[in-house]
């Protein structure tokens, strides 16, 4: 049975991800690309939350990211809601260990980045084209895979402590 109460742990995790994304990873980048910690946090949150809170978490996290940037409000909200939905539909297959979770996070990040590029281009919000878009499309999921391997054991312990049940990360 999935924990149905939205956990404070998840709120803290998403808030830390947004702050780290907009401050630390605003400066620390690998060949100009940073991992997308917000996607990572939203995806990992779906392992703890029920369906509706998971979708709302994605939506709110995306809206906050939109508000902090210059793109149209709602762009990342739509993307992260869809990513959360795909995560909900696939989470059972990923819940088998840290490596599986990392690969699952990377796959969902790829979906998220592709959606962001697609919607951003349709709404004239993202100015990336060709090789540069492809480079980021591939690098961000790879960086998220590494980030997931590093943070998933920690977040797993946090979520277990928050929910009182075992979360396999």
């Amino acid at each position, binding site marked *: 049975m999935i924990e149905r109460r939205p956990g404070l742990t998840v709120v803290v995790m998403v808030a830390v991800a947004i702050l780290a994304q907009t*401050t630390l990873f605003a400066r620390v980048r690998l060949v100009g690309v940073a991992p997308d910690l917000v996607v990572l946090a939203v995806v990992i949150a779906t392992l703890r939350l029920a369906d509706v809170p998971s979708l709302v978490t994605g939506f709110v996290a995306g809206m906050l990211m939109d508000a902090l940037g210059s793109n149209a*409000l709602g762009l990342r909200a739509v993307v992260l809601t869809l990513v959360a939905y795909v995560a909900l539909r696939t989470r059972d297959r990923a819940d088998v260990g840290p490596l599986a979770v990392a690969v699952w996070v990377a796959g969902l990040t790829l979906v998220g980045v592709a959606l962001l590029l697609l919607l951003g281009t349709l709404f004239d919000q993202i100015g990336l084209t060709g090789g540069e878009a492809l480079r980021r499309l591939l690098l961000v999921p790879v960086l998220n895979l590494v980030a997931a391997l590093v943070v998933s054991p920690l977040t797993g312990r946090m979520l277990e402590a928050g929910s009182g049940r075992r979360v396999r990360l």
Partner: protein
Amino acid sequence: MREYRDTRTVPTLVTLIVIGFLVMTLDIRASGGGLTGTLRDGTTRLLAPVQRVAAAIVNPLADFMEGLADIADLRAENADLRSRLASVQAELASVQDSLERLEVLERLNDLTLDEADLIQTPANVIGRTDSFDLSFRIDKGEADGVLAGHPVIDENGYLVGRVLSATAHGAVVVPIVGDREAVTVVAGGRIGSLSAILGSGQMRLDVFDTPDPMLAGTQVVTSFQSVSFPPGIPVGEVVETVKPVGGALRATVEPFSDLSRLRVVVVLTWPPDPTAVTETPPTTVVEDGAGGGDGGAAEGGDGDHPGGGG
């Protein structure tokens, strides 16, 4: 195995997606104003102080990590800087000569350049969103005299971009390399239009009615015809020599300002507003000899015309 499946999942998903698209459409149509503008404003007001504190905490860590990454490049950069210093010193000598000649000519013609007080507001870069949004957030806003449209330069005086939107205590800056608006510039004595090659970090310079080639290394500065930027701000340099085709040429320009290393920027109050000088609390006021004198340019070349795209 999870047994629980919420029947409200799909309706919730559809509702949130519809809300998301509605908000996006409203925001784009309102151009950052209206209800969505208020929503964005409120969120940034709420989060900016937290972001500022977080930036102060993570900056030492970021410095350390940047330092590690930079060690390998430092030696090559040092050698490059030494050679550049030598050429800049040589250029400076010729510029001094030109300045003296200009002073003599001004005296002869009884001309005085219109000097304007430009308010400079230093601001810290406190945040960016992700790898797909080149804009960044600074910790100064309307309360400090920073308004949408104000030009932004870095600590070396190189053009960075312009303020896209401002709240009471923060603002979003869109860099020229990510801006859809072109900048009217001067390169090698010729006026041209500089637009971003989006996603590449470089810019495209278009010059018309020119018989001469544009040489590699030619410096590009903002033009007196620009209404959005003060004249004479260095922007970048031409990457490779380009010959005109049919009287027009298109060159690639590498901006001087390195966005990835920006920690402090300076917002210029432009055009100078005498009321703003008295009403806002300026942090620094400097004399800018090159400022002003381009009021008539508004009808002519506009620095913020839509760019050529990317």
